[in-house]
């Protein structure tokens, strides 16, 4: 099966004196349907890696293919289209628009695809039901609890059925109860076939996921399959 994501020799050097080598040569293949955790100490390059996977940033050297597209040869506009149609993001800070309802926030996940408004709202409603927020559809984002906000954000990331969902510490701002629920939701969505890469500080979560990539100082320190352990 062709990989959803393929990185070869990816480096990222932040300018400065001296320059900061955030990534120092990453080779990584992620196949369709995988659920991968990325762990590592603070400053090890996890976020930088995720940004490059999501085409929000470009590598200083090396190649990366996402969903079959050679990112290095695409223009900024083309990368925007790639993100709109093939990549979903979940952030630690949720990044919801507080003035909008849950429904509109999720529908915004399709805002730049050019799909008609009616269709966007229908898909958004279905997705909110899927993440268990059917009763919160018309609630303003500012009125939701942290766990609910992250569910809305997850719904927004998957509403377009992207080839790849990238989450940067999605449970970092949640209590343990909400955190467990979000992880369970991600596992559920993965079981339906969505490929996911999740950065986490939580070793329990990393141990639950089928594959674990550990970074240290901008290099892959370990890339291992977990024995299909019970949650």
């Amino acid at each position, binding site marked *: 099966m062709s990989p959803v994501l393929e990185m070869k020799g990816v480096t990222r050097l932040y300018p400065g004196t001296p320059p900061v080598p955030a990534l120092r040569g990453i080779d990584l293949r992620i196949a369709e349907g995988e659920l991968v955790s990325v762990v590592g100490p603070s400053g090890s390059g996890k976020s930088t890696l995720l*940004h490059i996977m*999501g085409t*929000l*940033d470009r590598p200083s050297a090396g190649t990366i293919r996402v969903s*079959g*597209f*050679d990112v290095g*040869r*695409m223009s*900024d*506009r*083309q990368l*925007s*289209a*790639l*993100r*709109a*149609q*093939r990549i979903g*993001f979940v*952030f630690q*800070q949720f*990044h919801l*628009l*507080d*003035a909008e309802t849950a429904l509109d926030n999720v529908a*915004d*996940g399709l*805002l*730049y*695809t*050019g799909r*008609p*408004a009616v269709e966007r709202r229908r898909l958004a409603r279905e997705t909110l039901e899927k993440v268990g927020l059917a009763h919160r559809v018309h609630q303003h984002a500012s009125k939701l609890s942290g766990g609910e906000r992250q569910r809305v954000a997850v719904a*927004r990331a998957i509403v377009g059925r992207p080839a790849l969902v990238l989450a940067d510490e999605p449970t970092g701002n949640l209590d343990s109860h909400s955190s467990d629920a979000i992880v369970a939701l991600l596992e559920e969505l993965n079981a339906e076939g969505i490929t996911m890469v999740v950065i986490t500080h939580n070793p329990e979560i990393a141990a639950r996921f089928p594959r674990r990539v550990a970074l240290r100082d901008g290099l892959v320190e370990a890339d291992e399959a977990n024995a299909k352990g019970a949650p």
Partner: protein
Amino acid sequence: MSGNGLAPSRMHVADVLRTAGVGLRTRKLRAGLSALGIMIGIASLVAVLGLSESSKSDLLAQIDRLGTNLLVVQAGQGIGLGSAELPDTASAMVSRIGPVEEVSATGTLDANVYRTDLVPSSQSGGISVRAVETDLLLTLGGRIAAGRFLDEVAAEYPAVVLGSVAAERLGITDLDDRPLVWLGGQWFPVVGLLDPIDLSPDLDRAALVTQAAAEEYLGYDGVPSALYVRTDPDWVDAVMSVLPPTVNPENPDQVEVSRPTDALEAKAAAESAFTNLFLGLGAVALLVGGVGIANVMVISVLERRAEIGLRRALGATRRHVAVQFLLEALLLAAVGGVGGVLLGTGVTAAYARIRGWGLLIPSLALWGGLTAALLIGTIAGFYPAMRAARLSPTEALRTT
């Protein structure tokens, strides 16, 4: 294109407008205040143009009503010209000029007017006494405020009509208690009060008596000091040029001919000059409003970095981001522009009503006002929009 069926990011127009309105909806007070700057600028431009146009049209209507065919003939008042009097044949000579329709002569009398006979005669109160013909009011297009004008019946008896200022100075507001004035050493009943006479304000400060009464009681010698002449409107210039030699064939240069409506026209022109000054001030207000919008937009871009990053992650292109912020500035300016046009129109309407003018706002002020607002909005929004668009997605999403 990359070739494998990836459609470019695109947005529906309705969504473009909705996202541009996010900043306005979520920060209403700030949006309102920054739109207020533009609103005040546009309102003052519209009001200045509207007021000047309304007052000018009122003045022109007044000139029209009064007629530009009234001429005033007076003795020249230059140095060494001796007594300021016209020849006593003047009135008869002028009425022989073909296009002249009416001539009304007045003479100045050396007499004073008082409310009582007790005031020392050195205090004249600034009221002059004129011997006039009974057709004077008609010739001037003046109006009676109370009572009647002098007529042939009254010609033989002492009777006086007061100009508006003269009446006020003498403390006479109505004729109910049959007021008398002490004029030239004798009691004269006041038979009429005049409205202000726009074409000859000097008569507002005068007490008018008939020539017959003036000769009878005040020693008037019948020599006129001024002639009021109505001509055929098509021949005004020609009549103006023949009047001096007709009035005084020997010394035509001792005769002054003037056209009172010229002064009103000069007043209209002077008001235009003021208008330009105020327009300049309005433009400055508008500029300040534009700077306010630019300022608010720069702050908005800084505050909404995370939103910009999110939108880029959701697939917005740089252009989508730029358009969103540019349009937000335009919306702010448009709100201010529409509000300003409404406010300016309201102010003009209210003031015109108070002054009794017709409301007249040049359409240039309305369209120009809106266009100026949108132009200012574009300029004010351009730099912040470019900054927002240039922000890299990772930079925008960084939390520190």
